[in-house]
């Protein structure tokens, strides 16, 4: 057992990628492809104006040990057995930004490593993917949506950039906020734990402001009464299940072309209970498969939707003395910065593993190339395996 890191960060990231690749090769019995120059999409028949994209991020990274390593595979049967064979898999996605969930998700959405305080109720400073999408393609407000864990994410849909910003962003739905609004006020005390804003700093709840959708508007847009919403919530086991329920409702009623869902149950790892962290991973695995199934079965989405699945970042390595293993993502070590991404949909090569390092900020330019807008201020690079 090597407790002192002997390799540099790049070596470790490559080793992580190699492990994932080897595991997937064994698990799915596919041929891994490393070359990037000869990539050609299997077919590119979807016209850009009909093309849709669904992005699913895990706010609260999951490590290899609990996912793609041999002992972890039992936790992600859907990702490995069902989704991976249909996807191009990036085995080495590096996040070089701040490892806090809101600021990291904002960075994913802008294609720039944002630098604001993770716990502040602020908008991203760079234009979001939703603004590029809506402005360039002249899309309606109802064509871009974000479903995010709770209050801290309420400004994720729209930046404060002077060339974009106000009125050009995505609608943001915070299911836990809706739940708080739907619950009887005298009973809120019973649900405080459930409505907790985040697991990383459980005592921090930024005041709400921004483009969140009020219950009345939700009722109008999603045809969902408070009674029905509350009743359905009572049948679900976790906030992420509620988020996916809302996402499905959005797809059915509004069929947005750009839908972003951030799952957050995994982040209960901050409580230090390993079994609950594993439960969160298993639930996320199942929910990703559910979303993909919904896409495949909905005529508005089937055959014209590209889905991206990626954790916002990883979590600390067991062997880094500065951390406490899976519990946090504070060290900035290679394991906490290195994660993966799955891409699937029409024209995407299936069962392919890409080893070369890419960055999490490459997502927005890739979406731009795919959907036909220019992410002109993003710092990432379009992923050639997806867009060429």
């Amino acid at each position, binding site marked *: 057992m090597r407790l002192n890191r002997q390799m540099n960060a790049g070596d470790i990231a490559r080793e992580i990628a190699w492990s994932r690749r080897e595991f997937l090769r064994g698990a799915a019995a596919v041929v891994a492809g490393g070359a990037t120059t000869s990539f050609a999409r299997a077919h590119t028949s979807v016209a850009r104006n009909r093309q849709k994209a669904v992005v699913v991020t895990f706010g609260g990274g999951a490590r290899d040990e609990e996912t793609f390593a041999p*002992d972890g595979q039992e936790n992600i049967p859907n990702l490995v057995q069902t989704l991976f064979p249909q996807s191009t898999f990036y085995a080495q996605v590096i996040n070089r930004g701040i490892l806090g969930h809101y600021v990291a998700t904002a960075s994913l959405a802008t294609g720039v490593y944002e630098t604001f305080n993770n716990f502040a109720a602020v908008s991203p400073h760079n234009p979001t993917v939703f603004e590029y999408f809506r402005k360039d393609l002249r899309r309606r407000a109802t064509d871009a949506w974000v479903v995010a864990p709770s209050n801290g994410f309420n400004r994720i849909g729209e930046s404060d950039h002077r060339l974009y910003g106000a009125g050009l962003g995505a609608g943001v739905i915070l299911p836990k906020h809706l739940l708080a609004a739907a619950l009887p006020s005298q009973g809120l005390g019973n649900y405080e*734990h459930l409505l907790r804003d985040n697991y990383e700093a459980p005592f921090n709840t930024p005041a709400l402001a921004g483009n969140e959708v009020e219950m009345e508007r939700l009722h109008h847009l999603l045809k969902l009464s408070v009674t029905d919403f509350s009743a359905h919530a009572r049948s679900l086991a976790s906030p992420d299940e509620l988020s996916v329920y809302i996402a499905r409702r959005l797809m059915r009623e509004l069929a947005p072309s750009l839908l972003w869902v951030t799952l957050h149950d995994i982040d209960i790892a901050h409580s230090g209970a390993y079994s609950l962290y594993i439960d969160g991973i298993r639930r996320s695995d199942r929910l990703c498969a559910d979303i993909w199934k919904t896409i495949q079965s909905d005529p508005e989405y089937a055959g014209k939707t590209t889905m991206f699945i990626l954790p916002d970042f990883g979590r600390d390595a067991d062997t880094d003395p500065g951390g406490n293993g899976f519990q946090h993502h504070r060290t900035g070590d290679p394991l906490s910065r290195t994660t993966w991404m799955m891409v699937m949909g029409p024209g995407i090569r299936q069962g392919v593993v890409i080893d070369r390092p890419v960055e999490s900020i490459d997502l927005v330019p890739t979406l731009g190339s795919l959907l036909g807008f220019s992410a002109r201020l993003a710092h990432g690079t379009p992923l050639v395996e997806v867009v060429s």
Partner: protein
Amino acid sequence: MLPAQLNAENVKDYPPQGRQLIVSQLDVLRQLPAVLVPILLHEAMVYDWKFPKERKDLDDQFTYLSSLPKVERDQLLAGFSAITLPAETAKLDWVNAPSQFIEHLTASLWSTHQMDDFRAAADEYARSWRAAIPVALPPVSRLAIVMVGSGVSTADYPLFRKLKPHGVHFTQVSPEQGFATLLHAVTTRAAAHPEPFAHWYVDGSENVQQLSTAVTYVSYAGMEPARNELLIRIQRAIQSGSGGPEALRTMLAQMMPQDLGLPSEGAAALLSRFQISLLTEGSGTQIFSTTFAQWAAREVLRRAQPVTLLVRYSPRQRQRPMNELLSGAPRSMELDPAGSLVDADMGAYYTWLNQQRLSGARESAFLVWFEEHNQALAIGPATPRGTSSSSPTDLRQILAWIG
């Protein structure tokens, strides 16, 4: 203020022993990078409540820094000197509020992408002073024992997966008198090698029997009054709606033993301070007993560097799913023994890892036992790795073998 301007008057409000340390090291402190000095002052501020091994570590750092010729020292610390600080962070009162400075520094390192540089500088510094003044070997080989699975009757969870490659998995261990055997081993070692804070017992539940005074003891149940008081204060701070998370963090950092009903005078104050740190610095330690046990074991190993540690996990409260919470059913405390076993299994692995970070790691012994069951795993200097044994045995035999 710059480090070069630091003088004895600046630290007059520090606790006595911490102040004495700083005053004796003013010459070297004045020559250190602006990023490093507040970090050392932060350690000195709590010097009076540090365990003996922690004090030795800080003393060693100053001894090493003082011993270096200036050119060599500047070269070693060049990574720290290269860190650029925002003007507002540099203006902070880093002498009297070093923790606030460190909080701002951390945020700045992340936002300016200097975190990796800082880590590299810190690694190089730590490597150098540790190479120059190695940690002394313990007077006796270290022993860590972890008990997992209290309250679990049967389990199909594959226990000890991460530990198996490093030791022997026993599958026919007699559970009879198991706990008593382990407690006896701890108290015997404490009697044979008496030293303050060298022998610890961490219990995720309650004090099951009187231990020797030579064994330092902390328990989740024993801290319940302090935990409840802390949660009340946190809730009050949140409901006040003023100050936000920074004010809350400041409040937690300033928590004193007497605030939570813990002893605040004499030798007991040191342990009280440690107990407070478990609750205020450990995420989830206020909620889940398994998290408390894991974090307490980690902090005991990291800070007190004991030669003997016994950790006993107990079932934590069950996490209620959303539909159950929304059902309006009356709240009652239920336990989750099966989930707690999974938590404890990982916690045992972390305890071994943390033990391996201490001096004399090669000679250390480690034992984890599935309480009241037949499974145990042992790691010692002479134990073969990645093996298993189905021969009937008991914990006394295993301890003798690895000890």
